[in-house]
């Protein structure tokens, strides 16, 4: 490539300095890092809430928290972990990595991407502002009616829940739209759909699930807020409604959401295992299909959250069968990973250790999950600590271990520096031991009858020792998390340079420098297999597109070149639109309807300004 062309490319993509450029950036890497850091801060907040609960439950009859505080703390812990940590954390990985993995220069809609981040931040702060004034949601993360409506809920607590989740749903939805179009339209030439990295398959399956699942949450929270604010009737029998309706609406969203959380995490696992086993993933096609099948089947199992409600036996049987079937695609993936490790020559490094930790905990959580599909067993342990143990094994084991693996694996790409291997391995053992010590005893406490969500318990129930063990475990878990934090801080300051490809990996993000330049790839890569880093055939092409912010678009299945797209540069409009929506929410919660309406008009005006035709006009194809 001519040096002059490279210089033109660099000039086109240079980002101006200053506050406006910083707030208005649309670079998917910067937005991705923002997602990762913000979600990590929410993780620490949720960790503090968890520590408070474990302190309260360490021994019987404690008074660290009063009952109302305890309700708010466990509700915020669940809401934060699900909505403000795991989902956005994985969005952060997706934002940073998907364009790099598919050889693109940005997401399909860069300004929408920035908008999604600002909305996420606003919604998170909105939900936490309830905690600051002592009126946070206090009815758990699934917020069953009728405890969520008058006369059982009088303060604004549940309004923070309903309006906050409506607000956050915008961010999740636009993020999913962006991922789907990016993955279908922006892959590098030659990366046909059967050569796409498994992580991208996972993000695609997750995004499709989001498109169909979030509307159900939107309906549930929207109807709830209409009932609370204006006296509509949906969930109260006196007005002709039905509290069980809430459970259906919530879990039609809520169970797919488990896979929305789990699939990208599994995508990280399928990425890390081949690299550290030094061979391609065994049964790539099956893993890709299993990923899509899990997303699809996830929509057919929601009633297994409601086995104890009193629904007709025939519908219970159907959903029990569906819940058993969903173990099949998960099993396919587990065996593909095991075969990859068996056929390869594994090299133990911190990311790989965390993946092994994932395998152990996830299989345990999966086994207790299959137990719930047996209806009589489920009815025995419903609302007991056995359930708490199970879902921490699948969610902490299934999502947080892979996230920790991802942090250690991509830290060199994102920062250009290596983490310390000894601190990394030490952190793994602390997290692994701490996790199992915290959550394994909960299985037993649950089987002994300890109900979840109680703020304290009397002694003499036989639960004391298991609770004390859990609390000791949580201290070790906190130490492990702190070790990761220390490692990240020291890595940023003193880590040795990573170079472009410290792991000799197979995917495209490792074929550019660490951290990557604003345009990601100087020459658009051409892909010849599912392992472009290893096949010896995939290489940079002569396509540079040095003018403006251009990236090639390709056809959805075969990835033949279709067009060159002109991408937008920095803009403050996404931030303005998100801020206006935040004002709408503030107006609604404070009953200042004039503010909500004025802010709504501001939203419309910003969106109109955003969507005026661009001045640049149609892009001429390169000669």
């Amino acid at each position, binding site marked *: 490539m001519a040096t002059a062309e490279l210089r033109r490319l660099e000039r086109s993509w240079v980002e101006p300095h200053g506050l406006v450029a910083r707030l208005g950036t649309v670079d998917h890497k910067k937005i991705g890092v923002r997602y990762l850091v913000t979600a990590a801060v929410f993780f620490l907040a949720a960790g503090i809430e968890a520590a408070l609960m474990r302190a309260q439950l360490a021994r019987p009859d404690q008074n660290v928290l009063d009952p109302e505080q305890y309700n708010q703390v466990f509700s915020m812990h669940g809401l934060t972990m699900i909505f403000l940590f795991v989902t956005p954390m994985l969005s952060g990985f997706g934002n940073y990595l998907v364009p790099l993995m598919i050889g693109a220069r940005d997401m399909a809609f860069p300004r929408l991407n920035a908008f999604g981040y600002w909305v996420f931040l606003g919604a998170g702060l909105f939900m936490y502002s309830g905690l600051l004034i002592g009126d946070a949601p206090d009815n758990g993360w699934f917020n069953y009616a009728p405890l969520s409506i008058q006369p059982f809920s009088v303060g604004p607590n549940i309004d923070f829940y309903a309006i906050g989740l409506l607000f956050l749903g915008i961010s999740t939805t636009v993020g999913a739209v962006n991922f789907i179009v990016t993955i279908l339209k922006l892959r590098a030439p030659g990366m046909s759909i059967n050569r796409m990295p498994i992580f991208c398959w996972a993000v695609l399956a997750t995004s499709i699930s989001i498109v169909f699942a979030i509307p159900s949450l939107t309906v549930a929270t929207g109807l709830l807020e209409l009932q609370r604010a204006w006296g509509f*009737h949906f969930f109260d029998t006196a007005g*002709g*409604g039905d509290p069980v309706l809430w459970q259906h609406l919530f879990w039609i969203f809520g169970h797919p959401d488990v896979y929305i959380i789990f699939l990208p995490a599994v995508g990280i696992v399928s990425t890390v295992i081949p690299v550290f086993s030094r061979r391609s993933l065994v049964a790539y096609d099956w893993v890709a299909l299993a990923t899509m099948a899990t997303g699809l089947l996830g929509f057919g199992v929601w009633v297994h959250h409601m086995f104890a409600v009193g629904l007709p036996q025939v519908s219970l049987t159907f959903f029990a069968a569906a819940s058993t079937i969903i173990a099949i695609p998960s099993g396919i993936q587990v065996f593909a990973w095991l075969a990859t490790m068996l056929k390869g020559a594994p090299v133990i490094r911190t990311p790989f250790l965390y993946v092994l930790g994932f395998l152990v905990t996830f299989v345990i959580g999966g086994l207790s999950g299959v137990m719930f599909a047996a209806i009589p067993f489920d009815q025995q342990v419903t609302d007991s600590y056995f359930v708490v143990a199970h879902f921490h094994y699948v969610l902490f084991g299934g999502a947080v271990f892979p996230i920790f693996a991802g942090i250690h694996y991509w830290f060199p790409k994102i920062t250009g520096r290596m983490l310390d291997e000894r601190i990394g391995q030490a952190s793994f053992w602390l997290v692994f031991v701490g996790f199992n010590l915290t959550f394994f005893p909960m299985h037993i406490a649950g089987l002994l009858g300890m109900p979840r969500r109680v703020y304290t318990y009397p002694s003499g129930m036989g639960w004391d020792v298991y609770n004390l063990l859990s609390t000791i475990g949580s201290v070790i878990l906190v130490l492990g998390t702190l070790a990761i934090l220390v490692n990240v801080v020291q890595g940023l300051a003193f880590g040795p340079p990573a170079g472009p490809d410290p792991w000799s990996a197979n995917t495209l993000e490792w074929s550019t420098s660490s951290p990557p330049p604003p345009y990601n790839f100087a020459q658009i890569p051409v892909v010849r297999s599912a392992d472009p880093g290893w096949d010896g055939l995939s290489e940079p*092409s*002569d396509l540079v597109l040095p003018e403006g912010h251009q990236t090639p678009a390709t056809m959805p299945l075969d990835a033949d070149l279709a067009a060159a797209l002109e991408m937008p540069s920095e803009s403050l409009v996404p931030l303005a639109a998100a801020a206006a929506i935040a004002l709408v929410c503030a107006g609604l919660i404070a009953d200042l309807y004039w503010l909500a309406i004025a802010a709504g008009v501001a939203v419309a005006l910003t969106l109109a300004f955003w969507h005026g035709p661009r001045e640049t006009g*149609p892009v001429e194809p390169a000669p």
Partner: protein
Amino acid sequence: MTTVELPVRPIGRPTGWWGMLIVVITEATLFAILLATYFYTRFSSPGPWPPDGEPDPRLLKPVIMTLLLMASSVTAYMAELGSRTGNLRRLHAGLAATFALGLSFLILQGFEYHEKLAELRPSTNAYGSLFYTITGLHGSHVIVGLLILAWTQFFAWRGAYASENHVAVQVSALYWHFVHVVWLFVFASLYLSPRL
């Protein structure tokens, strides 16, 4: 180094169209779940439907509203065709007609609400809540559609969609078709099904 070549003309649908398609899919799911909620409430409530002695909804205005939206989808398609073939007169006429038809729909809905609110309010019972929530949400989609059409029209007059750059027209039309099709389901569920 591998040599690759861009096609002379862009092939396939633009990314903006794909984005709007997915937005429409998620919005359609939203309405599907609301209508499912309506039928869930109906079939889990004992006694006649509509409840509390409420008569079946009258059909005259809603039938006219349905015809208006059906016609507006045809005119939106005309506008699309006009922009694709460079026939600017057809583009402007199509957009204007779609806007006028959509606005008439909204005005009729206003009259319909005015009449209905005298006997049934959203806070009366679950039937009233669902009726106004679902039709109200659809009405707000009509308003958004009209704003999009007006904005597209404004730029059409300034000549923005003269040549190949007609993505905005295509995307606005796609959204408008959605507003039309989803109304057919709302109409069948809320107005026709109680008579079955």
